[in-house]
């Protein structure tokens, strides 16, 4: 089945076969990262712009390394998130970049739908590296890759995702990705952090951490933004940690061989205790390592798709 995506904007729009193809491709690329010469000429002559309107170290670095290992020229641009403040519209910013003929724009933006917006207006390929609270496809793919690596397959697994679901793009992409691959996804968090209609995305909704992780094969903890403390969603990080933090006690509710994932960056002592974060079940650094391979696969598949229109 041919999979020549022009863009990677959402997981929602991918088929299970597409996701598996991406993961298989990533497996081939993963080997490069262990070589002495960690570089292949695959995307020689391609220009990739990492257009980040929102601070990000992990994702940007991961995409940058992925691009460089494929021999593409990668350029990082950190733009002001607020086009209003900057006095330039998103369209203008993007068109200015496109005038320099990049082949792929990897984009992170604080507004949901911003990548969709650019994809509708520009000729080059767009890879969504996180748009607002909408989707974060490469994160979900690297999570799936990591789960597959440890569990052999995804179908039949139970994956619990705990945290601020309302404000998480990681959750949305993960729900689509994992359920398409046949897993059962449970999400949990305080009700203030669970938006309405979540079930319609295909997951189970739990209001306690213990019920969500009981018997789970995988537990994914989401980062709690420190700035949410003391506002209307949670009274304090202390209380959050007590009821929704993963620790050496409550993790026993999950299967003995359950793995623990975290998209990072972690708040140790809040959503995850250090003993779990550094414990035997954690696969957090595998996620980071696999992130490069998955992003290499995405860059390769997008660049290798149909020829970019000549202008």
């Amino acid at each position, binding site marked *: 089945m041919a999979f020549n995506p022009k863009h990677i904007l959402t997981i*929602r729009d991918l088929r299970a076969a597409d996701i598996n193809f991406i993961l298989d491709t990533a497996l081939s690329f993963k080997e490069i990262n262990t070589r002495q010469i960690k570089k292949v000429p695959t995307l020689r002559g391609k220009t990739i712009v990492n257009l980040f309107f929102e601070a990000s170290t992990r994702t940007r670095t991961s995409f940058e390394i992925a691009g460089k290992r494929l021999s593409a020229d990668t350029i990082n641009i950190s733009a002001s998130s607020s*086009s*209003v403040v900057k006095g330039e*519209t*998103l*369209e203008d910013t993007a068109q200015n970049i496109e005038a320099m003929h990049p082949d792929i724009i990897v984009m992170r*933006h604080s*507004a*949901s*739908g*911003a990548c*969709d*917006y650019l994809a509708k207006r520009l000729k080059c390929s767009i890879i969504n590296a996180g*748009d*607002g*609270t*909408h*989707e974060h496809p490469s994160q979900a793919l690297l999570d799936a890759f990591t789960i597959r690596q440890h569990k052999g397959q995804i179908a039949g697994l139970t994956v619990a995702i705990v945290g601020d679901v309302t404000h998480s*793009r990681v959750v*949305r992409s993960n729900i689509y990705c994992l359920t398409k691959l046949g897993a059962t996804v449970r999400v949990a968090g305080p009700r203030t952090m669970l*938006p*309405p*209609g*979540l079930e*319609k*995305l295909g997951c189970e909704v739990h209001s306690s951490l213990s019920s969500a992780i009981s018997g789970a094969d995988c537990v994914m903890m989401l980062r709690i933004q420190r700035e949410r403390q003391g506002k209307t969603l949670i009274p304090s990080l202390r209380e959050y940690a007590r009821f929704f933090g993963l620790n050496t006690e409550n993790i026993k509710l999950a299967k003995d061989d359950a793995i623990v994932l975290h998209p990072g960056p972690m708040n140790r002592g809040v959503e995850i205790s250090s003993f779990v974060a550094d414990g035997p079940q954690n696969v957090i650094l595998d996620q980071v390592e696999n992130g490069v391979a998955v992003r290499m696969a995405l860059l390769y598949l997008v660049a290798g798709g149909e020829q970019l229109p000549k202008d």
Partner: protein
Amino acid sequence: MKILIKNGHLVDPKNNIDGQFDLLIDQGKVVAVEPSINAPDAEVVDASGLLVTPGLIDIHVHLRDPGLEYKEDIISGTRAAAAGGVTSIACMPNTKPVIDSAPLVEYIINKAKNQGSANVFPVAAISQGMKGEVLAEMGELKAAGCVAFSDDGVPVVSGELMRRAFEYADTFGAPIISHAEDLSLVGDGCMNEGEVATELGLKGIPWVAEDAATAREIMLAEFTGARLHVAHVSTKGSVELVRQAKARGVKVTCEATPHHFTLTDEAVRGYNTNAKMNPPLRTRSDVDAIRAGLADGTIDAIATDHAPHHYDEKNVEFAIALNGIVGLETLLPLTLQLVRDGVIDLVRAVALLTCRPAEIIGIDRGSLEVGAVADIALIDPELEWTLDAQKLQSKSKNTPFDGWQLRGAAVQTLLAGCTVHPR
């Protein structure tokens, strides 16, 4: 000069007319309505196959004049009205400056009279500068010609101020038009809170933000005994609140917009900024409730909330796009669709667009009795056309209905006997 409109199907709900009548106009007034009129000295307009109705009345329009003329002005806005069969509009005060003083009311009335293609009835602000702090000079504003008071778009937060606004406006016999929303519940929401918002990762505006505020306004109206008109009801709960209030005798009326009885929040998919408005598009059950409210009389008028915005204000990320859509030129076909859908009959539809809104703002329009001003719409209810936003008369093209196949259009609009559309 006399004009004789012959062979039309006259629908004038105010006067219980629904049938084949001729109508004679002289000196801008209706001088005769009879099954058949012979007037050799009159210019004859053949209205065979057409509906002849009072000119439509839209009591919720943003003309953006003064101050925001790059979006719309009184000239372009009233041309859009005429093209949509609308001859009278009430315009909202959220201009720059805000319509909170008599000279500004006079400016609008005069500019409309001299250069406009429709009657314009200003709605003045409840509070000075629409800041929600001090009452506007309602007595002077009313004397200058405003028909109602509203802080539309910026709901009055203070219960005390709103109470006094009801009482004070009642002193001068004008209704309060409420944009009912609890802003603390709206937060920075940008679409209806629900499945679609969850999926798109957009901040939601819960229905309770509107219902809670509507309930407060109704309570205040009930308490003060003053008149309340609830603007653009969009939720099932609001409709029900108004229904119950009416049943116990509260002086409350309300309006619904064509987009709220036509579209749901599904229209936002694809981050379509032309589906972004306030109140937001809701769910199917809300749409059904609004349709039921139109049918059972709970909802008194259809009004567009015509809210022109420049291309640049919509061609941005969804979260920062401005709220609102233009509506004057799609009002008629979308309302006629309700008739075709069997929601309301034709007479009720015309009433919702003419005499009922006229009563709410207390103007002597929306009727074709002998002696009335000859504001008339000639409507081909079956005319099929495709909406091309770029061809709208409005300066702004922000409509979610671009490219839609529509049915029904005003083929001719007369303002005091003069043809203002087609131009």
